[in-house]
């Protein structure tokens, strides 16, 4: 399958500061692609390069199998985006804002379509209200509505949940899932909410200090390394001893009611359970999960070393 987005050897400097020092990644049709990295890693710069807002010094960006540089207008017609936060003309209504961006689309956008999109994001009733009266969450939803105007094949969302309250985060997350499942969109999602990326994304890239650290399927990347095991037993202290002696593992968390959590290689989990049984320790619950947060920190630390 050909990638819908192919970025290779992307370099960009601002004066003496090298923001991108060779970013590479591929996004395939239907992906929800997590774009991760610590602050200042170059995520926003890379995304802005993809959208033609920033001119790369070196490297190649192919979108829909076309070079961005020579087909920018055509390519942008098939991409919806929110970069950082969706800013609109505050003195205009939600509907008027969408009409403005709709007029720039490659194909005319009918009022009915516009109302359907506003309905999809839950803003149909507020369409006549001026944007200056909207909450951050409503602006975010209007931003998503704007990305859908031209029925794009690719949607780029840079930090779409930043500044939202928990309900707002859930709303936006559900919208993103619906975009994938109901509308079949390919989505590139940059977020600091690693749990959110873990829940939504099927592929991801981690960049640090302007370089790609790792790229791949979220599931395989998370299963390839250590898991975080949560275990609740009849004798948690004894389990801690076993872990220390047999596996040289330090327990991350120990609570008499909630049990233990600790890092362990996946293949060692059956041996641990067997040891517990041999030591007459009753097991209430075992859960193993590779947390993206741990993986992310590990990758960034490795890169730093």
């Amino acid at each position, binding site marked *: 399958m050909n990638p819908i987005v192919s970025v290779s050897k992307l370099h960009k400097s601002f004066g003496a500061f090298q923001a991108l020092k060779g970013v590479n990644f591929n996004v395939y049709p239907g992906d929800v692609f997590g774009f991760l990295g610590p602050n200042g890693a170059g995520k926003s710069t890379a995304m*802005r390069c993809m959208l033609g807002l920033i001119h790369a010094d070196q490297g190649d960006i192919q979108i829909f199998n076309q070079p961005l540089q020579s087909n920018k*207008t055509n390519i942008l017609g098939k991409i919806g*985006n929110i*970069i950082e936060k969706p*800013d609109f003309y505050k003195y205009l209504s939600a509907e008027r804002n969408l009409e403005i*961006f709709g*007029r720039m689309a490659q194909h005319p956008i009918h009022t009915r379509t516009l109302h359907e999109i506003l309905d999809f994001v839950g803003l149909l009733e507020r369409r006549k209200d001026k944007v200056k009266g909207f909450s951050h969450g409503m602006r975010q939803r209007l931003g998503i509505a704007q990305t859908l105007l031209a029925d794009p094949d690719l949607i780029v969302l840079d930090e779409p949940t930043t500044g939202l309250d928990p309900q707002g985060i859930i709303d936006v997350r559900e919208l993103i899932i619906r975009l994938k499942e109901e509308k079949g969109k390919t989505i590139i999602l940059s977020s600091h909410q690693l749990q959110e990326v873990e829940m939504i994304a099927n592929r991801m890239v981690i960049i640090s200090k302007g370089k790609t650290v790792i790229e791949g399927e979220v599931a395989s990347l998370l299963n390839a390394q250590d898991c975080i095991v949560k275990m609740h037993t009849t004798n948690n202290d004894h389990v801690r001893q076993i872990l220390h002696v047999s596996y040289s593992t330090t327990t991350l968390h120990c609570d008499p009611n909630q049990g233990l959590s600790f890092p362990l290689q996946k293949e060692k989990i059956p041996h641990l359970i067997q040891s517990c049984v041999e030591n007459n320790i009753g097991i209430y619950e075992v859960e193993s999960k590779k947390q993206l947060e741990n993986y992310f920190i590990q990758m960034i630390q490795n890169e730093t070393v």
Partner: protein
Amino acid sequence: MKPFKNVYNEWVKIVAKPRSYLGIGAITVLVAVIVFALKADGMSFISFVTASFEQTLTFQGQVLNGNLVAFIVLQMLVIHVPLLVALITGDLISGESAMGTLRLLLTQPISRTQVLASKYIAGAMYTALIVVWLGILAIGLGHGMFGSGDLMVLNSDGLVIIPEYDIAWRYVGAFAVAFLALNTVATLSIALSCFSDNSVGPIVATMSIIILFTIIGTLDVSVFDSIRPYLFTTHMAAWRSFFEDPFPVNEIKNSVWVLLIHQALFWIISFIYFNRKDITT
């Protein structure tokens, strides 16, 4: 045609902005104040101007008429209108940058050249609206309150009296050249707007340039003699030439060229810069 659709977009934005009405409102109030002031005490103002001629000339008919009032209004306001124009046009790019809408605008399927061209056209439309409104108010209110008559203009060569039947085309020409001069200010402020990420900077910079060039243009220092004819501010009052006799065709042509060349220069600089600009805000 996307460029024209985007001109419509730009016009919608200008019309929706409250500050756009500041210029229209300010002109309305100022013209009304000037006209009512002339109505209340206009004759003493005229006597002050004509005092030096009263011993050699006799004025018959109504000297203070609608045509003279329109001329006085135009002369008084054309100095201040550039600020009202820059207030809107200086904000066209930088305002979007400050608001954050520029990045959304530039990720639409429309080239940066088209975006900038739309803003220039919308800026020119707003400038034309200001000039037309100024003309309607000055001539309309002037004629409504003072009636018509021959126009008496005092310029550096002396007193020029233009018969009533010969005035209309001169006003049309004068307002056209005034528009051209103001559009040069609009073009300058839009060009400066490309370099800034806040709304105030380009407006202040535009006015600073106008003030600086005006000072250079009026300072009687020989070192500036060579550049003075090429400054656009020297030609800001070229509209006055329409009320001279004999009619200075070459002088007006020269002014029009200088203003157009300045506009072209500002366009070229802004198009080159804007197309290369990294949008990092």
